């Protein structure tokens, strides 16, 4: 007894858990909205102290505008914008950009092409001039396009080898109709990319890139910057045809419950991706869906990880999420609702069985008030942390533009989350993840997982090559 006391050593003084102090009000920043004479929409937002300015440019060049058989041309065009202009060669352009200490990324997704520039505020004007050059006078040299096409072809095997990327491709392929662009890889396949040349890139650019259908979001500390002058001299010099309406095709999906195994002989883990489509941000249910999805699998203490990770140790982590695929002004858009993670091969069957039990329990018993409260406190409370940098604010503002949402959507969302009750959150989560309407993709060793998965009765099981 005395030995035990001696080895335990002296102890610290314990105090009760402290209470929170008084919260400082914080609101998601309201941007200023304007339009340049050339038709370019501009959203700007002064964020004191943010020396790295973030610029996001949305181009209304969606993937469904790609010509038949040329999937990937939007991606090649996006990359080619920074591979030489009327003023600079490809190498010179990149060197000038890096001389500003800037980074410029461009990528093509279903709603359009997005360019993201980050640069210290003192060099913003110079970097905007380069960005404007890329947008209004890209050279699209044949040799550079050919190089980008070959480079893209070389990337494809790396993407296919990555279990998470492979699962995402398989889910889109099986969920959406084969003739819908959204069913196919965003950056094209080997067959389609091979057919892309400089003429195709230029034609896509001419048809879909112009200031009148584009938006620039600029966020950062503008204390020493004359933003209006900087924009007028750079992006203001970009010219193009007026905007034409472009209808957004509706998204349909077959979410009949079923399982697709992408065979990876010898894989030590199974990558899971379980999904369907559901409401986007235009739908009134969005705040409740955000809450419900968080309670199901937003974090380590949500329902899925409580069992799959913290009780069973099957996984490093499983998450549920809602990710907007594409929205339309009339509200006909959709979000991908999914659960993803990876589990060790031997635990695949038991992990899926537990996952379905979690979903069934949720449907039968609903969320608790305590879960709902914790979710609201987190989702609303983290806002000032999440939006500390200019890049985070710019990204959300640009998403709102891309999804045809009002500029105060995010600011209002926090109020709506706080007003959403447990019953609504439960209903939204249950209708987002109904146990019999989920398409399950498993990238793993079919010889080991096929039988245990069949035994679960979560739908017909198909095995495809890795």
């Amino acid at each position, binding site marked *: 007894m005395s030995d035990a006391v001696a080895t335990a*050593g*002296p*102890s*610290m003084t314990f*105090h009760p*858990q*402290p209470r*929170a*102090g*008084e*919260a*400082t009000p*914080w609101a998601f920043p309201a941007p200023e909205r304007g339009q340049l004479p050339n038709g370019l929409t501009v959203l700007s937002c002064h964020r*004191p102290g943010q020396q*790295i300015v973030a610029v996001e440019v949305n181009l209304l060049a969606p993937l469904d505008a790609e010509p038949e058989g040329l999937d990937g041309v939007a991606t090649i065009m996006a990359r080619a914008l920074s591979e030489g202009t009327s003023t600079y060669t490809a*190498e010179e352009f990149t*060197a000038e950009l*890096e*001389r*500003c*200490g800037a980074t410029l990324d461009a990528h093509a997704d279903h709603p359009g092409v997005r360019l993201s520039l*980050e640069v*210290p*505020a*003192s060099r913003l004007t110079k970097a905007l001039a380069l960005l404007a050059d890329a947008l209004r006078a890209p050279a699209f040299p044949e040799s550079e396009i050919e*190089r980008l096409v*070959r*480079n893209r072809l*070389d*990337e494809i*095997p*790396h993407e*296919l*080898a*990555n*279990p998470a990327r492979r699962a995402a491709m398989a889910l889109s392929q099986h969920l959406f109709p084969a003739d819908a662009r959204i069913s196919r890889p965003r950056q094209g396949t080997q067959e389609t990319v091979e057919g892309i040349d400089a003429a195709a890139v230029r034609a896509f650019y001419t048809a879909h890139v112009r200031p009148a259908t584009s938006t620039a979001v600029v966020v950062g500390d503008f204390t020493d910057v004359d933003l209006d002058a900087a924009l007028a001299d750079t992006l203001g010099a970009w010219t193009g045809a007026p905007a034409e309406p472009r209808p957004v095709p509706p998204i349909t999906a077959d979410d009949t419950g079923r399982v697709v195994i992408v065979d990876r*002989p*010898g894989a*030590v*883990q199974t*990558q899971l991706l379980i999904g369907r489509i559901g409401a986007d941000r235009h739908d009134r249910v969005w705040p409740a869906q955000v809450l419900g999805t968080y309670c199901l699998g937003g*974090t*380590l*203490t949500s329902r899925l990880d409580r069992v799959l*990770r*913290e009780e*069973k*140790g099957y*996984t*490093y982590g499983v998450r549920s999420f809602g990710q907007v695929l594409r929205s339309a002004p009339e509200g006909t858009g959709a979000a991908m609702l999914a659960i993803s993670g*990876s589990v*060790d091969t031997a635990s695949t069957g038991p992990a899926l069985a537990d996952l379905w039990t979690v979903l069934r329990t949720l449907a039968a018993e609903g969320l608790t008030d305590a879960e709902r409260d914790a979710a609201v*406190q*987190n989702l609303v*409370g983290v806002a*000032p*942390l999440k939006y*500390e*940098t200019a890049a985070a604010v710019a990204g959300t503002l640009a998403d709102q533009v891309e999804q045809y949402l009002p500029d105060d959507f995010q600011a209002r969302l926090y109020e709506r989350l706080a007003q959403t009750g447990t019953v609504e959150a439960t209903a939204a989560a249950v209708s987002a993840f109904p146990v019999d309407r989920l398409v399950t993709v498993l990238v793993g060793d079919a010889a*080991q997982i096929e039988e245990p998965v069949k035994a679960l009765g979560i739908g017909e099981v198909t095995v495809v090559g890795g």
Partner: protein
Amino acid sequence: MPMGHTATQQAGSSGLTATEHRLANGLRVVLSEDHLTPVAAVCLWYDVGSRHEVKGRTGLAHLFEHLMFQGSAQVEGNGHFELVQGAGGSLNGTTSFERTNYFETMPAHQLELALWLEADRMGSLLAALDDESMENQRDVVKNERRQRYDNVPYGTAFERLTAMVFPDGHPYHHTPIGSMADLDAASLEDARAFFRTYYAPGNAVLSVVGDIDPEQTLAWIEKYFGSIPAHDAKQPPRDGSLPDTVGKELREVVREEVPARALMAAYRLPHDGTRDADAADLALTVLGHGESSRLYNRLVRRDRSAVGVGFGMLRLAGAPSVGWLDVKASGGVEVADIESAVDEELARFATEGPTPEEMERAQAQLEREWLDRLATVSGRADELCRFAVLFGDPQLALTAVERVLDITPEEVQRVAKARLHPDNRGVLVYEPVTPAADETAQDRNDEETAQ
């Protein structure tokens, strides 16, 4: 001249300041005020990492980091996560060769809660640590290893190269994730002993950055951490010193199911915290960071032999830093052709040094990266801890950009000449294999037997 093209007047520090304090039990404290956003970051660095692990117990520091989230005397189960997230905060922990860090970013009015939580586990983790959480987190960490290393192409390259540049028996020979066998072997008593040895107030630095009242913050820190008993069981880490260069080229060829051939290499570089380390960082930036770098222009643009190329620096203070080259080959290209082009570029750079334009670009890039790190309260808190733990002076975090901008082209050339040659590297070559059906079946049988 280098200062002439700095992007900000204060060269990245934004006029930030930090104050230093020490409690009677040895806990060092760094505070930095910034009232622009109502948030506060808490960061706690323990001076223990995988370099402190012993043979047969690799991965213990990281496994232990997971156990720090399994409750302590006044915090049940997953309470550390639940309480922080429920307060609108975010949190995590990470383990590297040289340290383990824990961090919370909180709405400013919830700062006291984060301090209370960190103090509770620093002072009383063993009251809650049990077999159940040990067994559970062992499985979680093994799945982390599978997800991040074993089930992805080229996933074990980092381990293989590290093992080459740091010889067997060296404290950095193994990486923080550890081996499956050692993770299986770790016992509850190992974890308890690890805590008693390394999780002492005198072996930690606590930083708090953001919208804080320094006097009040220090009073809370004294209240919650001040009574944690000092103890000094820690032995100094094993000696990590090595000759400046490897002395000969080491080489390993991996035949695996990977999507493309690859050339990877690890070079021994100067210790972090020296001018030479900053010079090496600039050299690697000119050579292989970004799309105007020499290797990108040569391999991706001109030769078209590579899908992509990167040359990054893993800064280490207790052992030589590592320069990390990664080239994925284009279809049909032989690794030998890539390797000779790389060697040609490195040799040319060692002879010529960087051009003034290359210096300007590289310094501008590294400056922006620093501004990015310091743009958030959590990034700043982490850097203050880093410089306090590894170099004894948190103020160095606020002047790091100035030091990078002060490096001359001659210093960059000198370090390239001394370090970036074939006799100072481990080389890892990947040659893809396509398993025939019968071989695959054979492999699977082997694995079943092993289980």
